[in-house]
């Protein structure tokens, strides 16, 4: 018997998914997230999972984790006290950025967020030119003053990004060595180690994001590693932003690669079930306690962006250039809104009802949780309307207090608006649903994709409560409620391959460059990748290297990433690469120019360690046929007695008509009047209009 454990930290709950590798059967444990110290919640969840499984730690084949530590540090500006060292003349690189604004017309827009305050930006005299030649040698005599300044400023981390270090890293490495010797307590990140790619701002930004989050991530992961080792569990892996997992040393070498760790896991899980169900076009919708996230899987492919910005004002809602911190690593593309079960309902100065962006989170939590929360939340509205069951314990052993929920809504919403408590609760849901439709619109309608062509996969603790209402709003024909929706992201963690993306700039004419030179660069990255996979304990036969090259016509500024065959690099393989580039250019942009030389800019290697695929199923038990009901309020029909089903009792082939409610330990789903659910062979519920 082999098990996989996936641990996902949400804003409210920390979920542990326990998957039986052989049967695909799953178990879920939820514990409250511990915001002051996320690691504590992880350990609570793991302890509980091992106990209730019960799971023998020695039988655990994979332990994987999705973390929001990096994103939170950037969004809440809680990262390291961080410095930046540049070539003389360029200390303001991180502030000058690319000089364009995020919003074309908003005169009051905020300026970009900057990780390193100007007082901690330093310069050193040195210069390497565009041919990689030294124009000015590194001023060794300036180094002691830099070290002294870093010490005096009490910095925890420093990023170094010198001009053209991707062509010639001698100065950067020499400076790095001196800094690391003299400042053992300071995390030093060199751009030539993090991202040896052309474009000084993007390289400096990626390097600085690493430095900014590294001290926090290091202590967090060290604590988890110690604790999991004490439990005799296998080494921990962490989900990367592009949808593969990494081991801890790899994360710490490249913290920017785990920026969107948590959200990536949910999208990976959605794509997995898309494959399992044979549905190519999906919108993944993940609603937890604090935020709701949407992403599109089109033609079976997860949408990934190479031009991602983390943190910053606009990023909460949609991806925008100009306010966050660019990181040049692949990241799953998603839209996020501040709307979750814990989102607080409040009246603004004009008396308009608003939901969020503030969340009651896990502590103090919604009023209904009786943990000290007094302000009304989306969860409280769901309790008042009868969707969440006051009689049975909720996730994390919480008992729902309906009176507290009603009281909070009455006091803060219903009475000031002069409506009944039920009407107040219904208004809360109407508004939060409209906010979440916005995220769905961003990934579909705004990109010219018609939601009517997609199925909506609903997950997260609150996703299936709201999903059908959203589908109705956007005319999405089908909602899929997967097994364990409340811990779905945690499932994605254990279904992912081990993956790390490497890149190196090799700036040369593809037609004349020596194959050996290309071969050397590729081999070096593949050796790094193979070593990483070996450290992660993967057998060589499970490992693969995917090569690609960023190519363009010499005078273009943007590259196309083109797949490049494996094996020995020869003139013939480079010529085939060139042919592929012309074809891809034609396909992508509608024109190509085969007569023109092709410029190689970067070489890339993705090291993948395949983990055996699993088929995720909802295990069902023979249904007890006693019909349960509870009163629930629907906008179409008012309060009615709705049928209540237990998820685990819904056998394959069952059809259930709305209005009804499906209770499970981790998550409650609502099927409103006019919609019908059908349970498929693996226990997935497909909800469509009746």
């Amino acid at each position, binding site marked *: 018997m082999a098990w996989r454990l996936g641990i996902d930290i949400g804003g409210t709950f920390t979920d542990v998914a326990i998957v039986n590798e052989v049967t695909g059967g799953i178990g879920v444990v939820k514990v409250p997230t511990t915001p002051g110290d996320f690691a504590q919640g992880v350990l609570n969840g793991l302890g509980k999972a091992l106990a209730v499984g019960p799971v023998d730690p020695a039988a655990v084949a994979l332990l994987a984790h999705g973390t929001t530590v990096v994103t939170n540090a950037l969004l809440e500006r809680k990262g390291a006290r961080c410095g930046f060292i540049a070539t003389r003349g360029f200390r303001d690189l991180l502030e000058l950025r690319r000089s364009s604004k995020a919003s074309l017309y908003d005169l009051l827009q905020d300026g970009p967020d900057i990780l390193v*305050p100007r007082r901690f930006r330093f310069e050193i005299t040195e210069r390497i030119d565009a041919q990689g030649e030294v124009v000015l040698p590194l001023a060794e005599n300036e180094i002691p003053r830099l070290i002294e300044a870093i010490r005096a400023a009490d910095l925890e981390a420093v990023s170094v990004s010198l001009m053209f270090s991707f062509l010639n890293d001698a100065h950067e490495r020499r400076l790095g060595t001196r800094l690391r010797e003299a400042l053992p307590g300071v995390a030093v990140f060199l751009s030539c180690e993090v991202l040896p790619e052309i474009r000084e701002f993007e390289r400096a930004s990626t390097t600085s994001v690493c430095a900014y989050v590294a001290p926090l991530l290091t202590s967090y992961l060290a604590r988890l590693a110690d604790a999991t080792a004490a439990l005799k569990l296998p080494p921990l892996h962490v989900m990367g932003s592009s949808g593969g997992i990494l081991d801890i040393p790899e994360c710490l070498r490249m913290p920017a690669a785990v920026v969107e760790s948590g959200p990536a896991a949910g999208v990976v899980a959605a794509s997995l079930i898309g494959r399992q169900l044979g549905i190519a076009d999906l919108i993944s919708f993940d609603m937890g306690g604090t935020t709701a996230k949407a992403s599109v899987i089109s033609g079976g492919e997860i949408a990934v962006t190479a031009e991602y910005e983390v943190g910053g004002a606009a990023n909460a809602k949609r991806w925008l250039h100009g306010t966050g911190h660019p990181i040049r690593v692949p990241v799953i593309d998603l839209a996020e809104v501040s709307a979750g079960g814990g989102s607080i309902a409040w009246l603004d100065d004009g008396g308009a009802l608003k939901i969020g962006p503030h969340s009651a989170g896990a502590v103090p939590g919604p009023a209904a949780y009786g943990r000290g929360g007094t302000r009304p939340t989306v969860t409280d509205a769901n309790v008042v309307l009868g969707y969440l069951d006051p009689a049975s314990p909720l996730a994390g052993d919480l008992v729902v207090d309906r009176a507290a929920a009603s009281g909070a809504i009455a006091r803060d919403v219903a009475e000031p608006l002069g409506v009944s408590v039920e009407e107040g609760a219904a208004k809360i849901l109407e508004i939060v649903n409209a906010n979440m439709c916005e995220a769905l619109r961003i990934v579909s309608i705004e990109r010219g994709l018609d939601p009517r062509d997609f199925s909506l996969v609903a997950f997260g603790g609150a996703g299936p409560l709201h999903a059908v209402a959203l589908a109705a709003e956007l005319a999405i024909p089908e909602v899929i409620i997967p097994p364990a929706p409340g811990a779905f992201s945690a499932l994605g963690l254990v279904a992912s391959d081990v993956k790390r993306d490497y890149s190196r700039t090799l700036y040369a004419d593809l037609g004349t460059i020596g194959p050996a030179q290309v071969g050397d660069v590729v081999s070096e990255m593949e050796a790094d990748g193979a070593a990483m996979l070996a450290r992660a304990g993967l057998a060589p036969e499970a490992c693969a290297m995917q090569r690609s090259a960023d190519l363009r016509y010499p005078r273009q500024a943007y590259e196309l990433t083109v797949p490049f065959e494996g094996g020995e690099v020869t003139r013939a393989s480079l010529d085939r690469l060139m042919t592929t580039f012309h074809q891809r250019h034609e396909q992508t942009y509608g024109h190509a120019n085969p007569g023109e030389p092709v410029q190689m800019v970067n070489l890339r290697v993705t090291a993948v360690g395949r983990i055996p695929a699993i088929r995720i199923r909802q295990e069902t038990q023979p249904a007890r046929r006693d019909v349960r009901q509870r009163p629930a309020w629907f906008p179409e029909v008012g309060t009615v007695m709705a049928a209540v089903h237990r998820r685990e009792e819904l056998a394959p082939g069952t059809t259930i008509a709305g209005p009804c409610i499906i209770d499970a330990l981790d998550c409650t789903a609502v099927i409103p009047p006019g919609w019908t659910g059908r349970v498929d062979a693996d226990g997935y519920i497909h909800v469509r209009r009746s």
Partner: protein
Amino acid sequence: MPDSAPHKRPIDAARFEVVKNSLYSAAEEMKIVLAKTAYSPVLKASGDYSCGIFDVAGNMVAQGPDLPIHLGSMPDTVRAVIEVFPDATPDDVFIHNDPYHGGSHLPDVNVVMPAFFGDRLIGYGCVRAHWADIGSATPGSYGAVTEIYGEGLRLPPIRLYRDGKLDPSVAAIIFANVRQASERQGDLRAQIAANRRAVARLQALCERYGADELLCIMDAVLDYSETMMRAALRRIPDGDATFEEVLDGDGVIAPGATEDETFTIRGTICKRGDGITIDFTGTDMRVAGPMNAPATVTASGVFGALKMIADPQNRIPPNSGAWRPITIHSVPGSVVHAQPPAPVVYANHEISLRVSDIILGAMHQITPDRAVAGSQGTGGVVIFGGRDYRTDSVYVSYEVTKGGVGARPTKDGINAIAGPLANQMNTPVEILEMSFPLRVEEYSLVPDTGGAGRYRGGTAARRSWRILNHDAQCTTCCERTVTAPPGLAGGLAGGAARIWITLPDGTSRPVTSKGAFIAPSGSLLTIDVPGSGGFGPPAERDRAVLREDVIDGYVSRESADRDYGGLGSGGPQSEGEQR
């Protein structure tokens, strides 16, 4: 979808939304195709272009997320083509750059492609892109000449593709007249490809919804923008206001004079209900040099600034419908309404950006909580050309450097970022040096250039280039060397622009802010672009914030004492004084 919009037939609200967004995402796709495949750095890296989708009458239905500076003139560009070629076929592609036919300035080359669904004309794609060179005596085509004939190759609307094939005679004329013909050919290919994308997307929408439905929705999108703009204007108080600005000059020193002569633009706003009128009466008449703006260029400045005031969240799709409530009066022959053969090349950005600042300054008098203090207000253009010693080939490098956004009624301005109306990006130094025989030795913020105020203006940027192993032909185009970006509501002006050259022997001297000169091998050219104005009296600046500014070196101790009346109690902490 507002109910009041007059449609020929009812449109499903959800379908309207999907198709409207599809049109805008099609325009955005055009932009991606152009940016990612163009060859000129000014296009590919700086983003100096605009893409739009137009209806059969030449109204702009959708503009990509491009430069507001092109808002006004793109529809006239397409209309000029329709006028000359009313009989377009699916095999046609048109080209033109004539400022007196709806163009902006000669380097902005427009490629217009009709879109057909079967035999039926359903609209046009238009891609305007700034070519790094369009001929004339100086690389980059930014010379301080006195007639449009000296500004480069002027193309009235002509047919570039006939029967689906590039007309070799037309191509031969164009590429015989521009520097780096192979690079220009790459730009042209990218423009055509971007248009083909627009045509394909329009055809796909017709296949899905039918041509009748698509045309009906395109029409409704225009009405929708108009309705939204009128509603937004109604939320702004009625009022009248006048604002004027003095410009540095036109780059041509008059006979007998020793300095470039300044001139004035005056704008008077009359806002009533859901409409607004801007009258430029009182503006100076034609200047000798290329600082004369075609009326459509002036309109771009007006439209962009008013959209920022009325619709900061960008909820109104920018298209021809949005501008229907706006009326502009200007005197033909004045610097905001050029008549041939006046030269125009600088005016495209120099006049439109200042018109935008004038509108914002005037609107501040009507609605004080919406406008911002004077921003950079200039393109900050520096062009180098010559022969690259590494490849022995001709090169032209065109760059813009960004100063600050002016201080706002509730917050500081933004340092070194594109001001209102502009949004070009800088060229990465490493890309620039790979491409051209230049080495950037400094790119930094300039302290004390953000105007003092309760809220400080954004600071300027400095960029300096070493000329490597050749004598470069250099051209500059920069404003606000004389009149600094003004403050608002008691805020002080921001830093003025400066341009100077340091010769290999170490001597420095200022160079012209508009026009061409030789920068010798080994010399260093440096530009400080303008900063931006402050908002509110400096005495009201939060002292704690001022102290932080001093620690970070955005404001010097001297300026804190002189402009703000001192740091107050506390003084900067010691940690910031080291660097």
